[in-house]
């Protein structure tokens, strides 16, 4: 038994030697936190700029991860990353405001700003200052199964009224097929945000406009009401295995959803055969000159206020990460940078998975983001409260419009407790 104890002591000794090789942030080091998808590019940049002494850390892209770490670093006064990538871009609003005070306002030349898709940087502007550079955009488009649409003899809808008519026909003629789904951010972001329903219109870091009674909200509620009732629009989350099953069974006729649905939902999860999926712009509202897109996703880069003399190097790096055409052309999702989006589109255009080149629709969608979709600190509640009110109403067979005041009050509560004045 003594030998066991001696062994333990020896083991501890050895381990302490290993453990002391732990990683401490050296001075003058540029600490960069990115998700796995961005790691290779960041390492490439680090290798090309050895003088900057860049250390790249792969972080979990979990919602809330970066605020958690920044909050802890704030408490101890050290350990902040100089550059950080946000897979949940709304976190900018948390990081830029008190008590976090982490995201630095960025000095970006107008020429660089203007090279982004118009409107792409709008959510990064809070209280008149730019806090982030956008890596990719997730504008919504109308995905549809070209073969099914042809087989059923339907025209791709250009207006929401047509969309509704097709939904009602599908329910009668082909029950079980879907023309969309609304759940959490996919309901609020695809339908209500594209309609311009003001639920997260950040005026500044401390002011937000919320009005679920707005006509832009009620018109969407009225539009969805019959479709939810006849089940041509589902309430199952698109990432739910049950929805993947519907996809594999070829039951998805149309699915308004973000730009990345094609490559990351239809292709891997729904296993749609090549040559069937196509993208069209979102339907337009009567009385509006063009269709507008909602948004679900799209990452951003942020620079730390604590970067000190490393600030310029940090800004240079995120500028390169977001605007280098060669790099961005290879990235998995739709680039926010215009010239990159062109190059990205060229590669995508020849993808045999699509029935027709989806890029024109994606580009049009990216250029038609509905204003008023801000980055807000109550993002998580914005998503879950949609289910607690609107989806709960649908499930209970109650009118959607009747759930809007409840949604409004939950959003207002969340915004208020997140330090916003609600207007």
């Amino acid at each position: 038994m003594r030998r066991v104890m001696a062994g333990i002591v020896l083991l501890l000794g050895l381990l302490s030697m290993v453990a002391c090789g732990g990683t401490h942030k050296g001075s003058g080091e540029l600490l960069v936190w990115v998700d796995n998808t961005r790691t290779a590019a960041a390492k490439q940049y680090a290798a090309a700029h050895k003088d900057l002494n860049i250390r790249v850390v792969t972080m979990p892209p979990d919602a809330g991860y970066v605020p958690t770490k920044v909050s802890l670093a704030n408490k101890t006064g050290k350990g902040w990353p100089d550059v950080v990538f946000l897979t949940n871009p709304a976190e900018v609003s948390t990081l830029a405001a008190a008590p976090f005070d982490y995201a630095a306002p960025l000095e970006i030349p107008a020429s660089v700003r203007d090279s982004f898709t118009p409107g792409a940087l709008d959510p990064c502007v809070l209280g008149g200052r730019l806090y982030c550079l956008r890596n990719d955009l997730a504008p919504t488009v109308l995905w549809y199964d070209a073969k099914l649409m042809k087989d059923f003899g339907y025209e791709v809808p250009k207006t929401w009224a047509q969309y509704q008519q097709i939904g009602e026909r599908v329910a009668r003629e082909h029950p079980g097929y879907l023309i969309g789904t609304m759940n959490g951010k996919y309901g609020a972001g695809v339908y209500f945000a594209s309609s311009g329903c003001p639920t997260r219109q950040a005026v500044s870091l401390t002011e937000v406009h919320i009005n679920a009674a707005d006509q832009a909200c009620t018109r969407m509620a009225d539009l969805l009401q019959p479709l939810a009732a006849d089940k041509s629009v589902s309430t199952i989350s698109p990432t739910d295995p049950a929805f993947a099953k519907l996809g594999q069974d070829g039951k998805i006729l149309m699915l308004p959803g973000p730009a990345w649905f094609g490559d990351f939902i239809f292709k891997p999860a729904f296993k749609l055969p090549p040559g069937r999926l196509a993208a069209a712009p979102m339907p337009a509202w009567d009385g509006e000159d063009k269709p507008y897109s909602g948004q679900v996703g799209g990452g951003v880069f942020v620079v730390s206020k604590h970067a000190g003399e490393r600030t310029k190097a940090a800004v240079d790096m995120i500028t390169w990460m977001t605007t280098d055409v060669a790099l961005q052309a290879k990235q998995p999702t739709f680039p926010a940078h215009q010239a990159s989006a062109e190059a990205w589109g060229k590669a995508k255009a020849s993808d045999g998975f699509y029935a027709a080149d989806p890029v024109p629709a994606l580009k049009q969608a990216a250029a038609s983001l509905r204003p008023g979709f801000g980055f807000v600190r109550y993002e998580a509640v914005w998503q879950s409260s949609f289910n607690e009110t609107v989806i709960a109403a649908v499930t209970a067979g109650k009118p959607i419009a009747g759930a809007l005041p409840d949604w409004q009050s939950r959003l207002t509560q969340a915004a208020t407790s997140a330090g916003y004045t609600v207007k």
Partner: protein
Amino acid sequence: MTRRAFLALAGVFFVLPLVWMVLAPTRTADSLIGGPPLAFGSIANVASAWGNLMAYNDGELAGWIGNSVGYAAASVALTLLLSIPAGYALAKHDFAGRRAVLTLTLIGMILPQTALVLPLYLEMTAAGLTGTPWSVILPLAFYPFGVYLAYLHFASALPGAILDAGRVDGAGELRLFLTIGLPLARPAIGLIAFFGFVNVWTNFFLPFVMLDDDRTFTLQLGLMSLLQSTGAVNASSGFSSLNIHQPEAALAGLVACAPTLAAFLVAQRALRTGMLAGAEKG
């Protein structure tokens, strides 16, 4: 017979999730969605799933396994070093403060540590240890349940008369512990090591808060990063070009839980003994 039926029926409830998880890596992602819930694919799929996992950040998974093993070994070793002597002293000596130490130990056993993680973080920062393995190893080495097990063991398995005989022979108290107490501690060591190991291995929250650099991550923490980065659990995150989907996630999950189950089997004997009078920490 009904007795067995009852046990078996309950067994089905408990075993099915694991059966699914063992079968999942043998299948493809679309067969998991489209095929029957429980079906066997092929061994080749397991091999390719493993290859896909190792493609993440140049095989970083292996590093995380190494880290987890290291942290667990160090922490369990420390736990044993602390709890065996402490349990012995609490069981065989009456000293000022004994009651307080015991009561605090018992409270510590019942209360989950999660509530203390944030203050622990600040403490570790003050000590300059956050980000190092010690920030995980040291707090987890404080394992009151281990002390309680050792205490129970010595209280029941070591008659005071033996120690008294030793004292008459003029042996000092430390000598008595080393020559009489320690050799009798073997069953307790097994139990404490098992529960301590499971406690460290499955702990997520503490390393999550303490560690920043992916190279220092534990397996649990690394897996979260890997699975969220690739959309294997939730397609809306990651957008990785890596071929990591549900079968890979299930395989990773098996790798993560295998040591716990292996420890359970190894500890079977110790777990069956009657000295398990305490409880695992919730």
